[in-house]
């Protein structure tokens, strides 16, 4: 009972507190990293942290409102976190020539194929499921 009384007001203030949510997500990541090291699983800590959060959300221990603002911030600013890694190009002056053009061709061609194939597969699945559902309704 007493614990509930502490947790519920805490939850309410957490709902509108983005910095606290960012810290909370950071803590779940550290927990995931620790679990990964402790269990020796070949799964990155971030994924374990994500699974822990999903389990807590599903069990109702954690409301999505307690994390939404922080999560939206991390996802919205995702580009910033990997801009430093893009500067790896500095170590590869050879990419400025033919090799760079080849890489661009692989990425461009591959991306067009991936987008086309994925969209067509999903669309066909949707149509097939729609037909199944329609048939189901007729039987009912």
């Amino acid at each position: 009972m007493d614990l509930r009384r502490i947790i519920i007001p805490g939850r309410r203030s957490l709902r509108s507190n983005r910095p606290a949510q960012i810290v909370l997500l950071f803590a779940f990541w550290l927990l995931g990293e620790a679990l990964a090291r402790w269990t020796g699983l070949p799964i990155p800590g971030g994924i374990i942290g994500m699974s822990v959060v999903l389990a807590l959300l599903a069990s109702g221990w954690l409301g999505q409102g307690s994390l939404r603002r922080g999560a939206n911030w991390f996802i919205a600013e995702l580009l910033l976190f990997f801009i430093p890694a893009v500067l790896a190009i500095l170590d590869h002056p050879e990419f400025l020539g033919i090799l760079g053009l080849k890489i661009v061709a692989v990425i461009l061609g591959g991306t067009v194929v991936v987008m086309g194939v994925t969209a067509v597969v999903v669309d066909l699945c949707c149509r097939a499921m729609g037909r199944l559902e329609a048939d189901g309704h007729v039987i009912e």
Partner: protein
Amino acid sequence: MSLSDPLLQVAFWSAATIASYLVAKHLHRRLMRWWSSPLVLAPAALIGLALALHESYRDYIRETHWLVALLGPATVAFAVPIWEQRGLIRRHWPALAAGVVVGSMTAMASAWGLAELLGLSGSLRLSLLPRSISTPFAMTVSGQIGGVPDLTAVFVALTGVFGAGFGETILRVLPLHSALARGALFGMGAHGAGVARAHGIGREEGSVAGLVMALVGLVNVLAAPLLAQML
């Protein structure tokens, strides 16, 4: 404090990185051109600055690595869109699963095949394989299958820029009937940059794209140890 003070260097290059990102983000909102993406403008500005100040990549990444480390908690953050879209998953899981699995396999196979065709091999080719996955996941997969995570980050960035740019052209060519397919196209093909573009097309397209991006990352990271054995 002298200019070569390590702490000052960390502060300077971190500030330069964040500032160039914020400026590029602001410009992109106004211009909306492929070249104005923060993925193009910010690295271009930083490369110019690094060349002018004779900063090596090794020093630069040591000083800004804390920003890259934030990709870890960002991975955890993906739990929220997955949870929020659980209704969508329950209703459309067969189509989503097919899109994520077939899309991921197509991404790896097309990169492998095209690299083979153009004579790219070794760690460069392996670094190209995870390019359709969102960065935090892509760099993990790259490391596990023998690629160079930093190179993969470069390729992921290029994929996002091209995919967001060409996605709408592909939409015009393909006769797609469902918002699910339009969203999956962007989430699978162009991760973060694609999700932003999909939100511009429609609400449902945007949520599907975000969900597909998160699922693609999750599935690929879990499949990576298996893939590493096959390669």
